[in-house]
């Protein structure tokens, strides 16, 4: 349904150091699926979605939605797409209902259909209580629901959402998740970006992990996690260890049978991340540590998560990536780019 092929996009240039937002990114979203784009902030998710939604032209590459070339026929693609942007754009002076009516007119909906469809979405997203109040008085969750309704108004075949649940209360998030799943079940293709692992894990049929403007892993959540194999173990010998002790423990662990990929995580008080082949290995580890007279402050074991998939592909965790990217981004330049 959505084909992004070899997309490249570079921002900045003259005054600021250019940022390669997309670097030969290719992606294929099957029709009727709920597809997740997972990646840290600054990975290029928003840029990819803005290009898909005809708000931005790529430096190179192809975009197709339902077989239509988005660069050659943007208006046709706009009719197929519903876009729910990351920054919620509403008019504070209008009521929610007025905003939906405006949106309907921008999509050339007939008057009768406009009323029926608005009523339908107000009920679906549980907005009756406040839809006639001015948007300026809405909470973040209300705004996001209204924005979702606006994106769905013209019955798009493809719904694109950029970080739809960032900063939302639990109730609004649950409502939005439920609606997205219903949409998918009824045949709409849904593409959402997120930097919440659990959101993509819970919702997406397939996902692509994006880092540095390119796809580094792609598949179903189960397949991606299953491919890693083994269980994840996080070990802390003390609450705050030091480098010397950590490397001593690492050498000890690495020597154990059934243990692989021992990594010292400096960001978390020199804790150790490792992979064990089966649960029995953990007991062996405890014995080994006791023999070496090392305490165990905390030992946690879990099935592989999407974060482990990310870690495996990039060598860092998603949250560490967010921190390192935060310093490199030129927010002013990005804001300028997003201002159309």
């Amino acid at each position: 349904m959505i084909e992004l092929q070899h997309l490249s996009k570079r921002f900045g240039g003259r005054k600021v150091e250019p940022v390669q937002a997309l670097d030969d990114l290719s992606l294929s979203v099957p029709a009727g699926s709920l597809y997740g784009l997972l990646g840290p902030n600054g990975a290029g998710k928003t840029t990819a979605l803005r290009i898909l939604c005809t708000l931005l032209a790529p430096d190179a590459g192809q975009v197709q939605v339902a077989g239509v070339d988005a660069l050659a026929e943007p208006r046709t693609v706009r009719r197929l797409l519903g876009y729910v942007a990351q920054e919620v754009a509403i008019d504070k002076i209008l009521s929610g209902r007025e905003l939906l009516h405006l949106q309907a007119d921008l999509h050339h909906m007939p008057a009768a259909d406009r009323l029926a469809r608005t009523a339908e979405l107000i009920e679906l997203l549980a907005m009756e209580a406040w839809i006639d109040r001015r948007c300026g008085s809405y909470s973040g969750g209300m705004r996001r629901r209204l924005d979702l309704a606006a994106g769905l108004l013209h019955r798009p075949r493809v719904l694109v959402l950029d970080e739809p649940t960032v900063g939302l209360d639990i109730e609004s998030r649950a409502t939005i998740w439920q609606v997205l799943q219903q949409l998918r079940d009824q045949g709409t293709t849904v593409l959402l970006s997120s930097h919440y692992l659990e959101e993509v894990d819970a919702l997406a049929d397939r996902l692509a992990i994006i880092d540095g403007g390119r796809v580094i892993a792609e598949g179903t959540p189960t397949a991606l996690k299953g491919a890693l194999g083994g269980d994840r173990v996080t070990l802390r010998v003390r609450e705050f260890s030091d480098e010397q002790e950590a490397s001593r423990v690492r050498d000890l662990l690495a020597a154990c049978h059934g243990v692989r990929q021992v990594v010292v995580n400096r960001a978390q008080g020199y804790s150790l991340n490792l992979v064990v082949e089966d649960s029995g290995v953990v007991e062996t580890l405890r014995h080994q540590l006791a023999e070496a007279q090392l305490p165990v402050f905390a030992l946690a074991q879990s099935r592989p998560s999407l974060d482990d998939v990310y870690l495996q592909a990039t060598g860092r965790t998603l949250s560490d990536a967010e921190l390192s990217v935060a310093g490199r981004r030129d927010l002013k330049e990005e804001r300028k780019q997003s201002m159309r």
Partner: protein
Amino acid sequence: MTSASPSLAPVPSASTEPSAFAEISQETLALTRRLFVQLARRPSTLVAGVLQPLIWLVLFGALFANAPEGLLPGGISYGRFLGAGVIVFTAFSAALNAGLPVMFDREFGFLNRLLVAPLRSRSSIVFASVLYITSLSLVQSLAIMGTAALLGYGWPGGAGLLLVLVTLLLLVFAVTALSLGLAFALPGHIELIAVIFVANLPLLFASTALAPISFMPPWLGWLAALNPLTFAIEPIRAAYAGSFRLTDVVLVAPYGSLNAATCLAILAGLAAGLFLLIRPMLDRKLT
């Protein structure tokens, strides 16, 4: 929560597409309605917009109330002379500010909502602003003309009124297009406000709004005779003087005499030119 109904309506094929006119009208009216709803809920713009030119008219008119008889060409009073200038300047200022709401829409991301919608023509955004500003200018102009009549500065009469209307429409279209162009070209509202601020008063002083060309040194006379405001002021002033034949000479410029029809044609040319100039800017936002 009830069941979702995404209702995958088939995309209409090109052959069943409604007419371009119907679609553009729907877009334009919806966008215009939004501007009027905003105005109705925040009427301070309208109140200030009506009061300000009235204050101009009363104070400026009084400033030269005791000017010697026969000072102005045709021996008319300064208040009567000033009316046309205030009407045009008011419409001009309103139109020059037309880009501000669009700039704020850009900054708050609301414009993205318009740009991802399958608008038949992005000119609808321009048309909506023009409709809105023209209506606003008409209300302001009627208030000015009514006040001018009460102050004894005369009334243009039926055909004159039509001339005032056409002139304002052309000027508003041209200046609104310019302002929207700036709203797309400049980086932010600070820069836009700066441009508006710098352009506004000099264009007023370098026009025939406050004094006739015969009062000015040659260099200023030339400027005034090239200033688009002058081409709007002079036909309206002529209408106030009781003349509304399009062939009457209304402006004696250093480069020759112009009749009302020529002034209007120049304004129309300017409006068309500026509109064509900003069209590509609107479309570039698409790529």
